[in-house]
């Protein structure tokens, strides 16, 4: 093959003193990086195929392998980074769109890291979560403007009829990842963990595999522009229904599940032919206004007989606050806002890296807007897009979120190493693939346990942080921006976030 201008991004380093040529790496790499040469009794690597998923290094029984990120270092040109140059080479080769997956890969600022949490000292004593009850229970759904009590009986009772609520054991849910984009065992891991944890997983827009209907009470099901797998039973099986308008990783464009990932099982679940590309249009073809959205929301409410909350998920874009307001007024019980660091199984890299706004600002703006309009109680706000740890979650709650969705963190718990090649369908970790050679690598019993462990750990940490602030219920943290301070941000950023600078 003629030499290509695109150079390998990774170096596969094999310690000859440790390699025993056992072939585990050869058998595990779906990208065929490793190959065994019996005549020399040695294993060699074709580094140009390596995506840096580290599967081989993980399983190498002698620890002989190191995968080193060695992007080509062209002469430093300031404006022309090596990546920018490589991208030009790639497109000059292919003539195609640069594809990417998972979240924004550019070194954009992480605003969470500019926010610091408060803790009580002396005047407002902190609470020890090991000794005192600490409530993380979260209810999502429309709350009444005011509550009326019926006092005539022996005990007071609630006279107000409440809108349907989702009850979560903690303010963290698994975000929408469709069967098709991720594997059966990945979906199952998420559903099992959600049920065990008392929270919710989200089907994404790919329908619900028949095996997962039992998990319905622990699932939110999505209705997206492709309407894949949407039936009355599908809507009826779940705890809530989410209309997906947009996704933080690729605002303004639709979804594209390549035909290679549409096997028999995915085809039946999505109700599309085997091998056909599953194309979700950029817009819903029946929604061109808030009024149209209202129609769909109420159609779905009718379908679920007003027994389940309806969520609307949008990407965080420039005028997100006004859009969120419209969504709430259209009748949504939950508004999910997905920031520009949200993940995806496949997106044009230019869109992923350049469209949308950070969730921190979107969340603050939406919360402010709904409060100022006096409609904050009409819908719960769920933030998503790049939550990495429990501190990010606490900061989001303090900025105004009722709960968060985590997607990427959940996949990392399942083994994802962020190689960002989901769109190839060759996920060596058995997560973002439908290849039967690869999906078996994820044992959902193990996966569910790891997810359970992760969120159990986060829940402990959230309780510790809340206790430190002297707060004993997540209800008291929500929108409590006094517990946030920022460093290194401009006055304008502080104003939008609605928080003070450190020391203030």
């Amino acid at each position, binding site marked *: 093959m003629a030499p290509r201008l695109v150079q390998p991004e990774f170096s596969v380093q094999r310690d000859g*003193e*440790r390699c*025993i*040529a*056992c*072939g*585990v790496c050869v*058998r*595990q790499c779906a990208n065929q990086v490793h190959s065994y040469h019996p005549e020399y009794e040695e294993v060699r690597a074709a580094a140009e195929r390596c995506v840096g998923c580290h599967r081989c290094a993980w*399983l190498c*029984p*002698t620890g002989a392998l190191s995968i080193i990120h060695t992007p080509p270092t062209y002469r430093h040109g300031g404006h022309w980074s090596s990546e920018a140059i490589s991208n030009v080479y790639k497109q000059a080769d292919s003539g195609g769109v640069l594809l990417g997956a998972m979240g924004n890969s550019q070194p954009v600022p992480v605003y969470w890291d500019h926010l610091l949490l408060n803790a009580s000292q002396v005047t407002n004593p902190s609470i020890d979560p090991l000794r005192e009850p600490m409530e993380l229970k979260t209810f999502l759904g429309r709350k009444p403007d005011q509550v009326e009590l019926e006092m005539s009986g022996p005990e007071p009772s609630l006279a107000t009829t409440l809108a349907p609520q989702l009850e979560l054991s903690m303010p963290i849910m698994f975000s929408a990842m469709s069967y098709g984009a991720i594997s059966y065992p990945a979906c199952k891991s998420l559903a099992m963990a959600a049920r065990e944890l008392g929270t919710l997983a989200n089907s994404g827009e790919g329908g619900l595999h028949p095996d997962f209907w039992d998990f319905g009470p622990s699932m939110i099901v999505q209705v997206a522009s492709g309407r894949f797998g949407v039936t009355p039973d599908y809507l009826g099986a779940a705890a809530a229904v989410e209309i997906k308008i947009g996704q933080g990783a690729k605002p303004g464009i639709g979804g594209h599940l390549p035909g290679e990932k549409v096997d028999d099982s995915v085809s039946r679940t999505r109700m599309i032919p085997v091998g056909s590309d599953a194309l979700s249009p950029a817009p819903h073809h029946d929604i061109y206004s808030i009024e149209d959205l209202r129609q769909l929301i109420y159609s779905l409410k009718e379908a679920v007989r007003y027994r389940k909350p309806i969520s609307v998920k949008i990407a965080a874009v420039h005028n997100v606050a006004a859009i969120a307001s419209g969504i709430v007024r259209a009748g949504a019980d939950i508004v999910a806002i997905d920031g520009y660091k949200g993940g995806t199984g496949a997106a044009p890299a230019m869109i992923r890296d350049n469209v949308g706004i950070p969730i921190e600002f979107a969340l603050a703006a939406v919360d402010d807007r709904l409060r100022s309009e006096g409609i904050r109680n009409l819908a719960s706000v769920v933030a998503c897009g790049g939550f990495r740890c429990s501190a990010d979650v606490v900061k989001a709650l303090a900025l105004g979120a009722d709960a968060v969705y985590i997607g990427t963190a959940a996949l990392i718990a399942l083994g994802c190493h962020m190689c960002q090649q989901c769109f190839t369908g060759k996920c060596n970790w*058995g997560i973002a693939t439908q*290849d*039967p*050679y690869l999906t*078996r*690598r*994820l*044992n959902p*019993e*193990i996966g569910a346990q790891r997810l359970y462990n992760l969120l159990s750990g986060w829940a402990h940490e959230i309780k510790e942080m809340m206790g430190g602030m002297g707060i004993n219920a997540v209800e008291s943290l929500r929108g409590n921006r006094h517990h946030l301070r920022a460093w290194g941000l401009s006055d304008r950023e502080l104003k939008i976030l609605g928080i003070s600078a450190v020391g203030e």
Partner: protein
Amino acid sequence: MKIIQAIAQYCMNCRLCEINCMVAHSSSRDIITAFRAERERLTSRVTVEQSGPRTFPVQCRFCQDAPCAVACMTGAITQDPATGWVAHDPDKCVGCWMCVMVCPNGAMARDVGGHVTSKCDLCAALDQPACVAGCPNGALVLAERDEVENA
């Protein structure tokens, strides 16, 4: 008695079970030393079988009326009538391959270097069989022989 149950659904053909088996039964019990210095004697007592994407490891099933014990002409393979345990004594084995000929599971491995057969002993000296302990995906578990499910 408990034997090893494979869960084919989660077997991913890494074959670490084979490698761990070889190391656990090597003299050095050190993976690098074993593969360098003892290579010609390394014999896995577990074999990962493959058919398309489906794979699963097979090792001695400690059969009722074990045919290997019936066929063994030297008395190297014996079965305890009370427990069902099938023992193989390599010192008595001459490598006639009669057990290889009769094992319906293909579970008698040939240690060609030592000219003896070699079979799963459930790593009796360890807390857990090396293949079970080392399986990265929970595809090998211990189960009562009579309750072993299909792979």
